[in-house]
């Protein structure tokens, strides 16, 4: 018995020695990241492709934007991911300066469950009144006036929102705060809110599940989920006054126009006449100076190479396959410029 144990212990020790020896000699790098769940399908796809072609394993944990920021703060990941950019005060709270890299665009879709009604136009006034709980029936004259020719049932409106904190809620409430002063004053924008009406469900699947099970329900979900599930989608009014459906083209159009050099901008209520107004970037965040916590230059280089590839046209072409809108050329160029400002011991890593 004792000899067996000794042999086992020796075997374990031996194999672990070998492992660590291999690591140092070959400089085998693997990347770890964590953050937003909204771009998860896109990241899973491109990271898998990257690992297959380049042989660099990339692990991404969909723990939510807050978790992504926390993980980067704790320096346990190579990069984090978030759906909401960090405001200046939050940037200052990070242990070191960070940069934001936009990776793709998504939107928040207003989805509903009214059998047989495939076209629903919701003006900004209607959005405010429905989500503030001032309109409670589908056959309200205000909705009818905005949708001539559509017969709406005398059903109660059930608003289904997210019960968990979410970047989707952030984009949705940011838009409502822009179009409605009442919403901005009473509710505001954030990842989770003090909702005036309605009920909560967990995650995009929870919201879509609840809506699809409840006639008369309305809610908001991430576009990638709505497109994949082919839910009923309402047309909303952009700032040019046009009613638009969320599509790849209308979401991408939201990023036309002036993007600041650090790309930290909410794209909601874009002025482009073709844009879908509840759209936004999702970002990857990383430290501007990559020499921290004893990271090797190889680790930093591989991190940057991966991110540079993610904003390249090759990776961006994959985005529509999983229902995300690709970056505009302008946004991709800015992302590349930011990546070139990232340094290792003061020297730029990419050139």
């Amino acid at each position, binding site marked *: 018995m004792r000899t067996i144990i000794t042999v086992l212990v020796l075997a374990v020790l031996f194999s672990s020695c070998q492992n660590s020896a291999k690591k140092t000699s070959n400089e085998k790098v693997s990347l770890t990241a964590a953050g937003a769940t909204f771009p998860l399908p896109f990241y899973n796809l491109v990271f898998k492709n990257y690992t297959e072609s380049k042989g660099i394993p990339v692990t991404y944990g969909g723990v939510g934007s807050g*978790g992504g920021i*926390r993980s980067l703060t704790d320096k346990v990941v190579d990069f984090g991911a978030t759906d909401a950019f960090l405001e200046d005060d939050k940037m200052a709270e990070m242990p070191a300066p960070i940069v934001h890299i936009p990776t793709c665009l998504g939107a928040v879709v207003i989805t509903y469950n009214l059998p047989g009604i495939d076209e629903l136009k919701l003006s900004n006034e209607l959005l405010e009144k429905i989500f503030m709980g001032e309109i409670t029936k589908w056959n309200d004259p205000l909705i009818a006036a905005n949708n001539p020719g559509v017969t709406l049932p005398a059903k109660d409106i059930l608003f289904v929102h997210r019960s968990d904190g979410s970047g989707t809620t952030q984009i949705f409430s940011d838009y409502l705060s822009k179009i409605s002063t009442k919403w901005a004053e009473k509710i505001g924008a*954030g990842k989770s809110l003090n909702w005036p009406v309605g*009920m*909560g469900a*967990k995650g995009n699947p929870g919201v879509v599940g609840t809506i699809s099970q*409840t006639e008369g329900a309305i809610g908001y979900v991430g576009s990638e989920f709505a497109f994949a599930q082919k839910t009923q989608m309402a047309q909303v009014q952009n700032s040019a006054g046009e009613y638009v459906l969320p599509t790849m083209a209308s979401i991408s159009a939201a990023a036309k126009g002036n993007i600041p050099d650090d790309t930290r901008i909410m794209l909601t209520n874009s002025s482009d006449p073709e844009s879908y107004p509840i759209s936004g970037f999702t970002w990857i965040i990383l430290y501007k100076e990559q020499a921290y916590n004893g990271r090797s230059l190889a680790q930093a280089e591989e991190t940057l190479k991966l991110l540079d590839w993610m904003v390249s046209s090759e990776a961006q072409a994959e985005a529509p396959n999983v229902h995300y809108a690709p970056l505009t050329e302008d946004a991709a160029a800015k992302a590349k410029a930011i990546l070139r400002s990232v340094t290792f011991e003061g020297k730029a890593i990419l050139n």
Partner: protein
Amino acid sequence: MNSDKITKIVLFSVSFIILIVAGGIVFSLVGGAIPSFKTFGFGFITSSHWDPTDGRENYGALPFIAGTLITSFAALVISFPLSFATSLFLGEYYRNTRVAKILGTMVDLLAGIPSIVYGLWGFYILRPFLIGIGFENQGFGVLTSSIVLAIMIIPYATSLSNEIISMVPNDLKEAAYSLGSTRYEVIRYVTVPAARSGIFAGYILAFGRALGETMAVTMLIGNSNIIPDGLFSTGNTMASVIANQFGEADGLKLSSLIFIGLLLFVITGIVNSIGKLIIRKMN
């Protein structure tokens, strides 16, 4: 060292580990809750505001405390006739029969079903049913959650009281029969009074189980942060709000969620102590 000593040391250290774990949980809960307590004080327990928006953060736990107690109590009320009848059936009427064994296994099986499955059943079967019979408008809320909770706690209430009921000495019952009591009278005046502290303990256990249940309730209660104003109202519970909001929480919100966790711990402790006190009084 003799085996007696070894056993003693092993037992001592194992129970000590449990003590350390429990103490550690309390310690980290208290530590995490301090920022929230400093900001809101005891007002946290009585305030019904829950506003996580940046710049006007304000947290109060009353809606969740109310939601937890209301759903758990309603579940206890709904499950009582079912589980009490079942435990009499198993422990008295059909004691040691095949039927009782099958039924007893089925009841125990209920305890083994993951709570997400109860949640799904409530979501896809019970909720449309309640809407279908015109009982409810949208089917989410206190009533739906309580019914599902009631079914979930049946095994906890049943198995303990069934054990105790079957342990009531036969001498007592035979004495009652010999005095001409009917079966109903034996149960009413002998079995139940003799077993009442055990039966009660079973319900305390079941109530504690209902207080902490998370997944199934989260799927059915509607997750709106208001104090429920009736059986058909939506609401939220302490365990649900923690499960829902923990992922994206930081700073004061995270601390408030941990504070709620601490309160749940305290409430469960209080319920158990009251239960023990009553059991001691009964004996």
